[in-house]
C-alpha cells in the first residue's frame, strides 16, 4: 500500500517531465480581445454602422446617389441628376466622433456625434452599442413656395441607437432603433416625430470584398404617405486607407432622417445607383 502511495507521488513527476514545455503555457484560456472589423465603412449602406473613426483621425466620405436608373439614356441612367454628399468625420477619441456634412439633397447641412458605449469582446460582451445624434439644417426649403417658413422649420433631429454583433469572421448584423423629428415634413399628415427600426448586415465574401444591405422600417408612417421603406444592397471594396462602397437603393437621400422618411423609389421599378468613397487622413 505504502509503495503504491510512493509510486503515485512520483508518477506526476514522471508524466510531468514527459510533457511538452509548451503545454505549461498554452493554457486553453479563452481570449477576451475586442472584436474589430464588424463593419468597414462608417455606414453599412445608408444606415450608420457601429464603426467609428479612430482617435485624431479624419475621414472624408464622398457619397453620390445618381438619379433613377429608369430615366435611361435621357439622363444617362441618372448621372445628370446625381445627389452628392460630402461628410467629414473626426475622432476626438476612439469612442467619440464628430462630423459635419453637406448633402445636395434639399441642400442639407448636418452636424453629428457618434459615441460608443461598449464594444463587443470575445467571451465577454456580445454586442457593440453606439449612439448617434444629428442636427439637420435643410436650407433647400424655398421661401417663395413656402412663404411662412421660419428658420426653425428647417431643423431636424436624429437620435439613434446602433447595436451590432459580429456573429463570426464573415457575418455582422446590426439593429438600429431610431427616433427622429423634422420640424417640417413633406407630407402634411405625417407626424413630425417619427420612429423607425433600421436593420443591416455585412457578409464578407473575401479578404477585401463584402456584400452589405440595410433596411429601414418606418413605424408611424401616415396612412396615405407616398413614401416607402428604404432598402439598399451593395458591395464594399477595401483597399488600404480607402473603403469603396457601391450599391443600389430605392432611397436617393443619404441623411438618416431623409432616407427613413422620404424614400420615393421602389425596388424593381425605380431604383438609384450610388457609391460612398471614404478616405482616411
Amino acid at each position, binding site marked *: 500500500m*505504502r509503495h503504491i502511495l*510512493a509510486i503515485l*507521488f*512520483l508518477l*506526476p*513527476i514522471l508524466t*510531468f*517531465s514527459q510533457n*511538452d*514545455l*509548451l503545454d*505549461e*503555457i*498554452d493554457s486553453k484560456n479563452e*481570449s477576451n*480581445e475586442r472584436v*474589430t*472589423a464588424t463593419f468597414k465603412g462608417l455606414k453599412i449602406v445608408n444606415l450608420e454602422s457601429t464603426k467609428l473613426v*479612430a*482617435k485624431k*483621425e479624419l475621414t472624408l466620405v464622398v457619397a453620390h446617389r445618381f438619379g433613377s436608373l429608369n430615366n435611361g439614356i435621357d439622363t444617362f441612367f441618372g448621372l445628370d441628376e446625381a445627389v452628392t454628399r460630402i461628410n467629414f468625420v473626426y475622432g476626438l477619441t*476612439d469612442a467619440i466622433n464628430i462630423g459635419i456634412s453637406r448633402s445636395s439633397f434639399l441642400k442639407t447641412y448636418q452636424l453629428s456625434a457618434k459615441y460608443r458605449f461598449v464594444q463587443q469582446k470575445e467571451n465577454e460582451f456580445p454586442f457593440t452599442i453606439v449612439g448617434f445624434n444629428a442636427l439637420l439644417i435643410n436650407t433647400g426649403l424655398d421661401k417663395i413656395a413656402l412663404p411662412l417658413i421660419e428658420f426653425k422649420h428647417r431643423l431636424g433631429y436624429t437620435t439613434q441607437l446602433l447595436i451590432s454583433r459580429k456573429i*463570426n*469572421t464573415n457575418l455582422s448584423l446590426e439593429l438600429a432603433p431610431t427616433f427622429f423629428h423634422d420640424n417640417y415634413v413633406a407630407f402634411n399628415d405625417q407626424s413630425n416625430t417619427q420612429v423607425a427600426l433600421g436593420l443591416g448586415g455585412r457578409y464578407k465574401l473575401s*479578404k*477585401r470584398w463584402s456584400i452589405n444591405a440595410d433596411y429601414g422600417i418606418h413605424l408611424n408612417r401616415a396612412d396615405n404617405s407616398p413614401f416607402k421603406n428604404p432598402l439598399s444592397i451593395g458591395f464594399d471594396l477595401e*483597399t*488600404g*486607407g480607402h473603403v469603396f462602397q457601391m450599391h443600389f437603393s430605392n432611397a436617393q437621400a443619404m441623411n438618416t432622417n431623409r432616407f427613413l422618411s422620404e424614400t420615393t423609389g421602389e425596388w424593381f421599378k425605380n431604383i438609384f445607383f450610388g457609391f460612398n468613397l471614404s478616405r*482616411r487622413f
Partner: protein
Amino acid sequence: MMAYLKIKLNHFIYAIAFISLSAFSQSKYITKTGIVGFEASVPSFEEVKATNNSVTAIINTSNGEFAALVLVKGFRFKNALMEEHFNENYAESDQYPKAIFKGQIVDFSMEKLDATNKFKINGELTFHARKVPLEAIEVKITYAATANTIELNGSFTLLASDFDIIIPKIVRKKVSNEVDVSFNFKLDKK
C-alpha cells in the same frame, strides 16, 4: 524494529519525492508579460510596426528548452486601421489566433551564465498555420541573482511569404516582405 525501519524508509521515499518535485519546479522560469515586436516598414512610407506586451514564455534551465506563445490579436499598432487590416487580411487572427515558438537553447546551463551571455536558439515558429524552422537565433541571456530572474533579448528576420502571408501588389511598395522581429522576456522563477 523492522516495522520502525520500514516507516523510516517510507518517509525517506516521500522526502525524495517532494525534493524532486520542488527541484523540478525550480528549473523553470516563466513570464506572461513578454514583449515581442515586429516591423515591416519601408523607408519613407508610414511605419508598419506593432508590439505585443503580453507574450507568455517559459524556459527550462535544466535542459535549455524554451517556448513562447503569442496571441496574434494582442499586437498593437499606432494606426487602428492598420491593426484591423493586419488581423483581418494578413494574419487572419480569427482563424489562427496563436503564434508559437518552440526551441532549444544550444549548450545552455545556468552555470555558463556567469561566463557568457551570448547563446543561440534553434527552433520552429508556427504562425498562420505554417511551421518555419529558425536556426541559430542569437540571444542575449542574463541572470539577475537578487531578483532571481532570467532575461532574454534578441531579434531575427522573417519573410512574410514563408508564412503564406501575401502582400497585395498595391501595398507592396509600403509593406516589406522582410519582417524584423525583436523579443524581450524577463522570466521569473516558476
